[in-house]
Structure formats: C-alpha cells, structure tokens
C-alpha cells in the first residue's frame, strides 16, 4: 500500500477530476449527433414527435454540456497546479495539441450552443440545424484533439529529447501515433453506446411512469437499435486496441491479464486477487491457453509477464496490477451486459412487430413487444455506459503507470511539490462538490423524465400537485 504522499494525493485528485469530467463529454459527444439526427428527421418529416424528442434531450444536453465545460476548466488549471513537470518536459508537443483543441473545438461549441439552445425562434431553420451540427462537430473535434494527446502519452513518437525536453520532429507522426486511431474509435463508440443506453433507460423509465407518447417509443427504439448495432463494433475495436497495446505497452496487457510470468499457453484468468507482495495471484480461476489464443491468436503463443518489468535494483516499472485487472473485467462485464440487453430488446421488438399500434403499415420493430420486466431492467442500464467508460479509462490510464508519458517521463517526476495537506484539503473539497453535483444531475434527469411523462414538458413549472401527479404517473402503462 502506497502512503498518501503528495504524489499519490495529486494522482487521486487528478483522477477524481478527470473521472468526473469524462462522464459529461461521454454523453455530449454522441448526444450532439443524436440531437442533430432528431433535428434532421423533424425537418424531413415535420412530425412533431422528432421535435419533442429533440426538446427533451436538448435540456439534458445543455446540462451535461455545462457540467463538462466547468469540470474541463479544472483540468486546464491542474496541469499547472498538480503536474508542472508535464508541460516542462513535453510542453512543446502537448501545447500545440491543446491549443488546437481550444481554438478549433471549444469556441465553436461554446458559441453555437447558445444559438442551438435559445435560437430556435430567432434564426432561420437552416441556421438552427447548422448550429446543432456545429456543436456536435465541435464536441467531436474536441474529443479528437484530446485523444491525440492522450494517445501520444501512451505511444509517443515523432519527437527528440534535448536536455530533458521533448522537441517535435514530425507532427504527422505525433498526431497519427500508433494507438490514436484505435483509442479514438473506441472512445467514440463508447460515447454512442453510453448515449444509446441513456436514451433507452430514460425512455423505459418514462414508459413505466405511464408515458404512452409516440416520441418515447421512437426514442426507446432508437436507443436499443443503436446499442445493438454498435456493441459488436465496440468489441471488435476493443480487441484491435488490445493487440495494439500488447505491442507498445506489454506491461499494461500483462496487468490486465494478471499474468506474472512470461510463458506460452497462458491461461485466461476469470477470477483472481492479484497480490503484489508475493507477485502472484490468489484464488486464481482460469481457462488454460485462452489468453495466449486471444493475444497471439495461437494456443501456444508467448505472452510477456509482469516480472519482465522489474529492474535489477528491484524498481517496479509496471502498473499496479489489481486496479488494472479489475477495471478491465468491469469494462468487459458491462459490455457483455450491454450486448445481452440490446440484442434481447431488439429481438423482442422484432418478434412482436405485429403488435405495433399502427398495424396498417409495415413495421420492423414494435416497442409494445417489450415486457415490463425488460423496461425495469433497462432503467439501471441508463448509466451502464458511464461504468464501462470509466472502467476502460482506468484500465488504460492506471495501466500507463509508472509512466506519465510512456518511456519519457514518470508521474513522480512531474508532480508539483506542494504540501500534501493542501492537496488533501482541496481533494475533499472537489469530492464533496462532485458528489453533490452528480446527485443533482441524476435527480434532474429523473425529474425531467417525470415531468415529460406527465405531459408537462413545457417551460411552465407547476409543482403544486407534484405529490399526486407522481402517484398517478407511476401507474402501469396499459
């Protein structure tokens, strides 16, 4: 167990901030595009249900966007307050990438979100649609630049070190570094999956509250179909990403697999308690040879173990094993639950497609086919994307330790020398604020869903009868 010194506290503080932050971009990146889709469908069909869906989700988008912006500002300051050594060493590379994120993405989204949110009746339809597009585009650009920088920290190239400072030699190589395409694709799909299950979960909740509106059915369908389509793609991209990591960061993969000794015919460990003291696993349950098969596509392929990353003087140069091992399993497990839920949901809707209300026209899917138990199961899945995304980021970021930039600078070298007490005090402050805001955020989403389910979705707020209305709204759907 590491002592809670300035380094450990700074890491926890930065992890807390960045974990809180990533929750909201994960939603806004994809939700921006989903809103654009709703907006375009409304323009095409003039069907009010698309606009109702847009109006409902644009509120959650605005809320998430604000949460993302303010928690993101914290990040830009904490590079300096917590990790001055980061910019001093690799500032020549990180700098331009961050600058391009601010210049090409932040301003674009920040300006056009005003028009997107409040401009519907002030600007022509095409400009409102364009604003929605530009906000979605801006969030994606932002994700691109930050993933470029993050990937470069994992797989740095295109630079040279002079007197301990990195200088760029080839920007093309820096931007298109080996892990960038996989990480970007993995994160984009993660964002879309998060939003797919958020939409499905919140729509299921609204249906359970007795909301029989057409937009809820459409949204439920949109969420489940999007999830069912993307989850196989995510598993495929995740596998490619893992193979890429095996080449560039073998210590991370060894920690993910809980594999201490280099060897062939390595088992895939389903359960274990990795023990750093004895440098082995307690209570290991594994399938022989499967890790070799997955990682090398051959039963007797050689897989590098953690013990290769201990230097002769005993310095451990691999990440802490247990957090990486368990984060990875949490991510995969959540992904499997997503796969099961979305495919089952789509299958049930397809099987009962004739139950569709408008039975005169041909429909492939009927939301009416989803039994109530399925709706109840979808509600807790609303934030499954958050769990999987955070677990994935913990796997890759804790898996990068002890390096800050792989092979270039360690986290310990970059930390700010401020008193541990100050870091601990501010950490508590951030945690209290984040816990309260997270609670408020989820409460407001539930509240907006309840309000919409009551058909009270306008801006007028009438709360006098909320007690009664809640009871009435929780009656069964049919």
């Amino acid at each position, binding site marked *: 167990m590491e002592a809670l010194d300035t380094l450990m506290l700074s890491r926890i503080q930065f992890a807390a901030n960045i974990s809180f932050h990533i929750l909201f971009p994960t939603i806004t990146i994809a939700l921006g595009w989903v809103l654009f889709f709703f907006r375009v469908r409304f323009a095409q069909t003039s069907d009010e249900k698309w606009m109702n869906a847009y109006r409902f989700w644009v509120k959650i988008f605005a809320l998430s966007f604000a949460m993302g912006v303010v928690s993101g500002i914290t990040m830009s300051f904490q590079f300096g*307050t917590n990790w001055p050594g980061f910019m001093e060493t690799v500032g020549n590379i990180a*700098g331009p990438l961050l600058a391009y994120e*601010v210049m*090409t993405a932040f301003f674009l989204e*920040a300006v056009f979100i*005003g028009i997107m*949110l409040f401009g*519907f009746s*002030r600007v022509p339809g095409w400009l409102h649609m364009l604003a929605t597009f530009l906000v979605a585009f801006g969030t994606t650009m932002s994700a691109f630049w930050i993933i470029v920088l993050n990937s470069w920290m994992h797989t740095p190239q295109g630079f040279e070190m002079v007197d301990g400072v990195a*200088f760029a030699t080839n920007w093309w190589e820096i931007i298109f570094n080996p892990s960038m395409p996989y990480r970007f694709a993995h994160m984009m799909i993660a964002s879309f999956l998060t939003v797919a299950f958020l939409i499905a979960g919140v729509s299921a909740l609204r249906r359970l509250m007795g909301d029989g509106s057409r937009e809820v059915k459409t949204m439920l369908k949109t969420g489940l179909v999007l999830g069912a389509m993307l989850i196989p793609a995510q598993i495929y991209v995740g596998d490619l990403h893992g193979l890429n990591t095996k080449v560039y960061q073998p210590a991370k993969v060894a920690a993910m697999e809980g594999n201490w000794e280099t060897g062939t015919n390595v088992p895939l460990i389903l359960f274990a308690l990795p023990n750093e003291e004895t440098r082995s696993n307690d209570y290991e349950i594994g399938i022989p040879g499967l890790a070799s098969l997955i990682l090398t596509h051959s039963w007797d392929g050689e897989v590098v173990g953690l013990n290769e990353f201990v230097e002769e003087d005993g310095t451990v140069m691999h990440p802490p094993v247990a957090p990486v091992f368990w984060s990875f399993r949490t991510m995969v497990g959540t992904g499997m639950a997503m796969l099961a839920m979305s495919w089952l949901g789509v299958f049930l809707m397809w099987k009962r497609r004739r139950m569709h209300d408008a039975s005169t026209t041909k429909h492939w899917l009927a939301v009416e086919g989803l039994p109530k138990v399925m709706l109840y199961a979808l509600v807790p899945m609303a934030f499954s994307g958050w769990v999987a995304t955070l677990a994935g980021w913990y796997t890759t970021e804790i898996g990068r330790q002890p390096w800050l930039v792989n092979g270039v600078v360690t986290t310990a070298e970059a930390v700010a020398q401020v008193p541990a007490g100050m870091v601990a005090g501010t950490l508590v402050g951030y945690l209290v604020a984040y816990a309260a805001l997270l609670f408020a955020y989820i409460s407001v989403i539930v509240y907006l869903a309840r309000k919409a389910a009551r058909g009270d979705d306008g801006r007028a707020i009438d709360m006098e009868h909320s007690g009664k209305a809640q009871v009435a709204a929780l009656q069964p759907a049919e």
Partner: protein
Amino acid sequence: MFPDFANPAEWLPWAFASLMGFSILVYVVLDGFDLGVGILFPLADDVEKDKMIGSIGPFWDANETWLVLAVGLLLVAFPTAHGMILTALYLPVFIMLIGLILRGVAFEFRAKAHAKHKRLWNNLFFAGSTLTALSQGFMLGLYIMGLEQTLATYAFGALTAVALAVGYSFIGATWLIHKAEGGLQLKAVQWAKESLWGIIIGIGAVSLATPLVSTRIFDRWLDFPNAFYLAPIPIISLVLVVVLWRMIRQMPFENDARSWLPFAVSTAIFALAYIGLAYSFYPYVVPEQLTIYEAAAAPESLMIILVGACFVVPTIAGYSLLAYYIFRGKATALRYD
C-alpha cells in the same frame, strides 16, 4: 518595448504574450459582465432574475472560453511560468474553480430542477459568481505583489479581491442598462452608480502599489521622457470615469438612446488599466523572476500554433459577433423554442 521581428525566438514569445494578454482582457470584460450579473443577482426579484439570466444566457459559455484560451496560451507558450504561477496560487485557483463550477451548473439547474429547489440554485449562482470574482481579484493582487505570500500581500490581495468583485458588478450593471428595460433597467442604473467606486479604488490601488513594489516599474513609469508618453493612460482613464459618472446619473435617456454607452466606456477603462498593467510587467511573465523570453516554448511549436491562430481567432471573433447579433436587443426570459 518591441522585439526584433527578424528573430523568431524573440518575436514569437512577444506575439504569444500579446495574444495571451488580449485573451485575458477579453475574458475580464466579457465574463466580467456575466459574473457581475451573478453578483447583483440577490438584489433582483424573481421575474427580474429570469431576465438577468436571459441577458447572459446565450453568451456566458463562450465568454468563459476566453479564460480557457488564456490559461491554455500560458500553458503552451510559457509552460514553466504556468507551473510556477499556478502552484503559487494553488488555493485561490481551487476556490475560483469551485466558483466557476457552481456558477456554470447553477445556471442550468435553476431552469431545469424542481421549482422548490430554484432558490437554492439561485443562491449558488450568486455564490459561484462572487467566489470566482473574489478569487480572481485576490490572484491579481498576489501577482502584482510578485507572488509573495506574506500577511501584507494577503491584505493587498483582499483589497484587490473586493475591488475586482465590485468592478465586475459595475460592468455587469452597465451590461444590464443596455439589455434591460423598465424597473430592472432603473435598478441597474442605481447599481452602476453604487459600484463605480470599486473601479476607482481598484485601479487606484493597483496603480499606486505596482510602482512601490518594484523600483523597476517605478522608474519605468516616472522617468522622463517615458512619463510624458504614458501620461495619456491615467489622464484618459480619469476623464472617462468622470464622463461615466455624469452620464449614469442622468440615465436612462429618452427612447433608451445610447444605452450601450456605459458598457462601452467601462470596457475602455478596463482596457486602459490593463494596458498600464501589461506595460508595468513586460517583459516578465512571472513578476521579477521569469521573462517571456526565458519561459517560452520551442519556436517551432509556437509557430505551429500561431499559424492556426491566424486563421482561427478571426473566425472565432466572426461567429461570436454573429451570436451577439442574433441575441441583440432587450433580454427576455430564455426559452428553448
């Protein structure tokens, strides 16, 4: 004052210092009025509160982004200075960030949460705006005192903290004079009258303190012939303050004429004070410790950013103006449809 434009290692840091300085100024004026409106929030009734929010709603996000750009430029162009300044200001930065977080989210929550919680979010909106303004003022004071941490510098920081918060309320009030009508506008005129002293004390204190802290700054302002060339800065500021005072006493004018003028004049005062400050500290980015030339990142990296900035910053200015144009005129309560 000006670098050798033939040598990239000299003019690039200078260009980035100018760009960063410009971003900070734009931030102070634009988010200054947002924060000022937040500080004035408890003084308004519920209907007026919605209109006050409406007057900044479409803009605050983009306004805050200028802070990100400014800190970003400090980070990318002067990485060593970024570390030195922000570790020295660790606690006030933390308080500012908490303030910015509260302000930003309260903005959204107050409109979306259950009505019985609206008051809580209103209070948090005020608290967030005030904390942000106070901590920024405190950081300004400490920066002027060369980032030294003693009781005396803290006292000066406390003075600039209050002055900046009142200064922000002043510019917020002038913004409301332009964006509001009826009773709220009359209130805004009153607020502007009552908070003008913040600007006078703030600029006065900073102008007196800076030359006293450093003999270098003292000489720079008071040596002949510099003093002669620089004299217009304090003189014009003084004239503008007097003009502002006389104008606000008579506002609002008939047919709401020139309602934008107080905001424009206060912007000019902020800009003049800021130019004076920049002149005092140049070429230092960490006062008396580190110059922009010593702290600058590699010229190649700066060049890459500058090329992009030449295209992107005018575009940002363009679409920002578009947003202000779309949401021109008197503010109403915000609607999504």
